[in-house]
């Protein structure tokens, strides 16, 4: 992956909810090849930041651009975002991935042709399923999958959009330690195989943050407290005390 080509840029972003300032003068850029972890205590503004970066929430001031275009006007096809375990319980694994593949191929308006016979859609489904280990489970309803597989399916469906950047809101929360490393390993591998240019993830688990990211952004009270490599963040005693220490206290 080529580093230092700016994909996503936020400039002087401010987000107010009534009188509460969730984000205050945030400026950052996400570059090609980066795996960015956003860390911070609860209520720091991490989710608001991801929402603003994906265009899901409009900033009160400032702007966010993806390759020079305002993110508000971009669809999920360019920036995929996912959250906790978020599945379609009654849909099969194959159908779940197919929903994303249809969006990616812009086949949503094909009202008179059978989805089951839509070869391009099922080629994407098979490719993504193979990467995520779902090849033998395409007809299984999503609701009967294990918690770890549900999480993986959630990630897989977002990958089927073939986005350039993927934003993950705590992709490993609520799963066992063993599943966490499986999910992260598969996720990073899939990103490489599918040519995803950057990963941004909100994460509380510091082992994952320091084990997988090549850049960490620490957020506190709606502001960026620190932004740098894992080594440089580890060297910042104030950040470690404010964010990592606080999380250990909570734990």
């Amino acid at each position, binding site marked *: 992956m080529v580093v230092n080509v700016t994909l996503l840029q936020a400039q002087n972003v401010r987000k107010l909810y009534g009188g509460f300032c969730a984000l205050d003068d945030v400026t950052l850029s996400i570059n090609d090849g980066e795996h960015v972890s956003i860390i911070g205590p609860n209520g720091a503004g991490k989710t608001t930041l991801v929402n603003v970066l994906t265009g899901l929430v409009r900033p009160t001031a400032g702007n966010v651009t993806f390759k020079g275009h305002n993110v508000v006007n971009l669809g999920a096809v360019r920036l995929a975002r996912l959250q906790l375990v978020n599945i379609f319980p009654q*849909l099969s694994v194959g159908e779940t991935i197919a929903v994303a593949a249809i969006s990616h191929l812009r086949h949503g308006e094909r*009202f008179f042709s059978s*989805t089951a016979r839509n070869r391009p859609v099922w080629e994407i489904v098979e490719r993504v399923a193979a990467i995520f280990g779902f090849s033998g489970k395409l007809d299984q309803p999503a609701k009967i999958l294990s918690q770890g597989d549900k999480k993986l399916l959630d990630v897989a469906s977002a990958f089927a959009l073939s986005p350039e950047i993927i934003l993950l809101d705590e992709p490993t929360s609520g799963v066992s330690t063993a599943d966490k490393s499986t999910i992260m390993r598969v996720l990073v591998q899939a990103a490489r195989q599918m040519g995803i240019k950057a990963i941004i993830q909100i994460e509380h688990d510091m082992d994952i943050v320091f084990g997988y990211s090549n850049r960490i952004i620490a957020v506190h009270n709606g502001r960026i407290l620190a932004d740098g490599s894992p080594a440089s963040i580890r060297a910042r005693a104030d950040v470690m005390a404010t964010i990592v220490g606080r999380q250990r206290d909570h734990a």
Partner: protein
Amino acid sequence: MTTSTAPIAARTATTATSKRALALPALLFLLIFIFPFVAGPHYVILMFSAMGYAIALLGLNLLFGYTGLLSLGHAMFLAIGAYTAGYMTSTRITNFELILLVAVAIGATVAVPIGLLCIRYVKIYFAMLALAFSMLLYSFLFKFYHLTGGDEGIRIKVPSLTAWDLSGLDTLSVLTGPLYYYVFALLVLLTALMRCLTSSSLGLQLRAIRENQQKAEYLGVNVKRYRLVAFVIAAVYGVLGGVIIAIPVGLADPSIAYWVQSGNLIFMLLLGGYTNFLGPLLGAVVFIFFQDQLMSFTEYWRLTFGVILVMIVVFFPNGLMGAIDRRGWWST
């Protein structure tokens, strides 16, 4: 990357297009087709109405079974169909095809603005808003006597067919003969069309919306757009059903827009099984005949229906079709 056709073939084999799965609707349609040969005129007329309800329910189930939006006001579209037939036949425009086309045009035109407002809401809010619109129409039909005939309604003459000369035939012969088979052909056509729609990307996206709206949005599904599409298609099926239901009655009156009518439609869906594509067809047929028989036995038929509804919800949550189609070939 696997590019073989095997998994695609495996996928299609599990869908309802397999030959064994087709036996279910084929049997149902065969029963309806041969019905005029084996049953008396009273029952054939009942089947005529059941076909009208089945068409309306196919549309309603796109909204409820596939999209997860329960409308308590779908009767408004039946009323639009019935009154269109009433107005047109009373002005001597009796061509059935033309009546259907005008009804579809009016139904779709009315459905777009109402749908735009309703699809902003889900669950009880959607249901109540649809009910409110239906009751508004009911009040209008009831109160604006000079336009709608008030509680007396508008009489509907038996329509004529472009490709079938009906002159010389009495009303009963038309309803149990040419018009019956015309409506039957329409039912088969509209069922095939609905199957086509539900098997397409529209069907999958609607099911995704039903299952998890937020996730569907994240995956790039235009939730409001497809909800509106489902609402308008349901409305079109509703008006077509309304035209057909009103013909054997010979009258379009406000009761067709009343909330009880919408309640009956929901009952039929639950009876047949809203989780099954064929549920609306079976639900309509069973409901109409069962209601007819029950009404002739007891004046407390509504009470009996209530008990049956409770039993269906408790023992057969997927309706009669869910119990018949155990392999889920036609599951929504």
